[in-house]
């Protein structure tokens, strides 16, 4: 939409999609310059939720930092806990018992389902369909019930410990998980019927904010965002850790089924399909889990050897990386967290050129960012 001839001068509007906005998934500020309804430039401004987690990490011990990793990405709390545990274990060479690894995989995949449910729910709510959000929350409540039984909290779990997990599975936990999986199986086709393939929804998302595979790799996108652009890369397959090599599952990739490969719809469908894959992983893990101890012998006063390590885990939002430098004392010397949402924001300016204001909301939702992770 260009200005109508030279007779009518137009001006760019500078709109602040401010820190307080119902759709920015947290306190994100986007500075929009628009020509009418079309966006000329959209620059994200982050930092409103900075809590100096990395600095806190330098003054607490390794075990004490675990609850802080909860609050890094509070919707995928188990995954962040486990990433921290795996990083420290890699540094100190601790051997984790197999039962503990299976338990970790089970809770991580359950948390992946619950995180994708929120991504799905809040995304459709941003698009105007308020109902699927409530359905997603209902499913998530059942997952929260499972987590409450296993560790006592419903949101920030602090269940994983360095060397294992804090407590063994409670009574009948595996049966209840299986019941949940049986209950959840028919829900995904229901969501697809209700909203995923709804013509209005598809039209809002198809061909919007296309991230080409080259761009996605260049800007460091990871996780479902990268796979939505057609790149078949999943850390659980390409750099396997824990017991993932023993479990059989597919990698979901965006196929451009309703538009171009790498548009918002593809990223959304990758998340829906990943929920299905997580259900598969969970069934296999429940079947394969052995008996045994759930915690390795870790000294009370834990001093890992001097050195540095970088460990990356496949979190629901992408690749969470922990870069850890230890100087042999009880506190880490430096820990840096590579938050997937922070890196995803890099592509924001490029991808939003020429979109309409309503599409900005679609883009933010389709990238599934979460602010505590961006700002740490």
């Amino acid at each position: 939409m260009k200005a109508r001839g030279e007779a009518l001068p137009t001006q760019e509007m500078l709109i602040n999609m401010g820190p307080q906005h119902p759709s920015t998934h947290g306190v994100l500020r986007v500075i929009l310059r628009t020509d009418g309804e079309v966006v000329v430039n959209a620059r994200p401004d982050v930092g409103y939720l900075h809590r100096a987690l990395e600095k806190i990490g330098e003054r607490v011990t390794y075990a004490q930092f675990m609850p802080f990793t909860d609050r890094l990405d509070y919707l995928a709390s188990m995954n962040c806990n486990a990433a921290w545990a795996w990083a420290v274990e890699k540094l100190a060479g601790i051997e984790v018992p197999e039962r503990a690894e299976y338990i970790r995989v089970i809770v991580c995949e359950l948390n992946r389902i619950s995180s994708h449910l929120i991504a799905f729910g809040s995304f459709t709510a941003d698009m105007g369909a308020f109902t699927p959000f409530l359905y997603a929350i209902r499913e998530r409540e059942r997952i929260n019930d499972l987590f409450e039984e296993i560790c006592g909290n419903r949101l920030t779990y602090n269940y994983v410990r360095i060397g294992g997990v804090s407590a063994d599975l409670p009574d009948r936990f595996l049966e209840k998980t299986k019941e949940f999986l049986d209950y959840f199986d028919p829900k995904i086709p229901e969501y697809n019927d209700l909203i995923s393939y709804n013509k209005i929804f598809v039209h809002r998302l198809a061909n919007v904010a296309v991230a080409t595979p080259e761009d996605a790799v260049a800007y460091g996108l990871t996780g479902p965002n990268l796979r939505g652009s057609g790149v078949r890369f999943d850390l659980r397959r390409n750099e396997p850790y824990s017991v993932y090599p023993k479990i059989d599952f597919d990698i979901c990739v965006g196929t451009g089924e309703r538009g171009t490969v790498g548009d918002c719809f593809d990223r959304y469908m990758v998340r829906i399909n990943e929920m299905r894959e997580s259900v598969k992983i969970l069934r296999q893990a429940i079947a394969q889990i052995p008996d045994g101890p759930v915690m390795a012998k870790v000294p009370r006063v834990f001093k890992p050897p001097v050195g540095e390590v970088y460990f990356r885990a496949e979190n629901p939002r992408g690749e969470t990386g922990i870069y850890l430098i230890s100087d042999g004392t009880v506190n880490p010397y430096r820990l840096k967290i590579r938050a997937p949402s922070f890196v995803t924001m890099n592509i924001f300016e490029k991808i939003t050129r020429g979109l309409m204001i309503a599409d900005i909301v679609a883009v933010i939702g389709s990238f599934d960012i979460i602010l505590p992770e961006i700002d740490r």
Partner: protein
Amino acid sequence: MLESLAISLVDAVPVLSGVPLWTITLLIMVVVAAVVLTFALTYAGLATYVERKVAGDIQARIGPNRVGPVGILQFLADGIKLLLKEDIIPAKADRFLFVLAPYLVFIGSFAAFVVVPFGVGLIASDLNIGIYYVMAITSLVVVGVLVAGWASNNKWALLGGMRAAAQIVSYEIPVGMALLPAVLIAGSLSLQDIVRSQGGLFGIFGWNLFHNPFTFFSFFLYYVAALAETNRTPFDIPEAESELVAGYHVEYTGIRFAFFFLAEYGDMFVVSSLATACFLGGWHVPFLNAEALPAVWGNLFSLGVFLGKALGLVVVMMWVRWTLPRLRVDQLMRMSWKYLVPLTFFNLLGVSLWLLLFQGRGIPQMIASLFG
């Protein structure tokens, strides 16, 4: 009609014969207007309650259920709350226009209640340009919304106001053209006439819905276009809460905000009652002729039937709202100009040809005439 009411009142109460007729007519007008307004406001309040209950049921939860027996007094609690809120007018806003806008929207919406045919002889004013009047007066809403968006001195409000203006104006055309088949069949713009023309044939087959396939489509086209007129999801882009932070009424607080809200529900009812009157036979039901009943019973019965149908359509609007996502503004405009306008044109052409070919008879009439 009100004049004749005035005359009959003077006849009934001889004391009033000294008072000039125009005074009595005026008084009766005021009373009727008050009755209609009361009905409209009560309906709007209850509609908010029903909306929340419907939303709760669809979303696997309970709606309001604490205030009053099943939460039915919730709208009163909301109303009192809104009355007591602080009235904020932004510093650099255009004060006069800011204050004027809610009134414009309110008038545009509630003035249309005057020609709604609630029942046999229950119409505030049977204008002989009924439909034309409704279309004209609901256009005041556009002015009100634009003024609200501009006067708020807020970029989000301005965007919302402009989108709303574009949307409402472009959907007026399909609305008008989708209503024309009913006018053509009845031969009059007066709503009471249109309802009357759908009588006979067991009370159900005379409805314009079954008259011919083109009017059948017209009903759905009208319903969709009317959804857009009233800014309801999937067309609620002007007030899209998650994108525009409530769009054109973002700066309004308290009772001014309530005006916009009530006007939206009032609009919904007007549009639904137009659909009922023009396509669903108004107050006609199968096997019971309301006009044949004694006076008061007939009025009440037809009122009940009409309200049932109109409110049913309102509930369908709510059902659609909680199911569908929202259209983007350019998709909305595309839908109006590229889909609804051609379709309604085509429909109008079809109805005209049909009426020409079959001398104004519908399918049920022709079937009935086969059986003698």
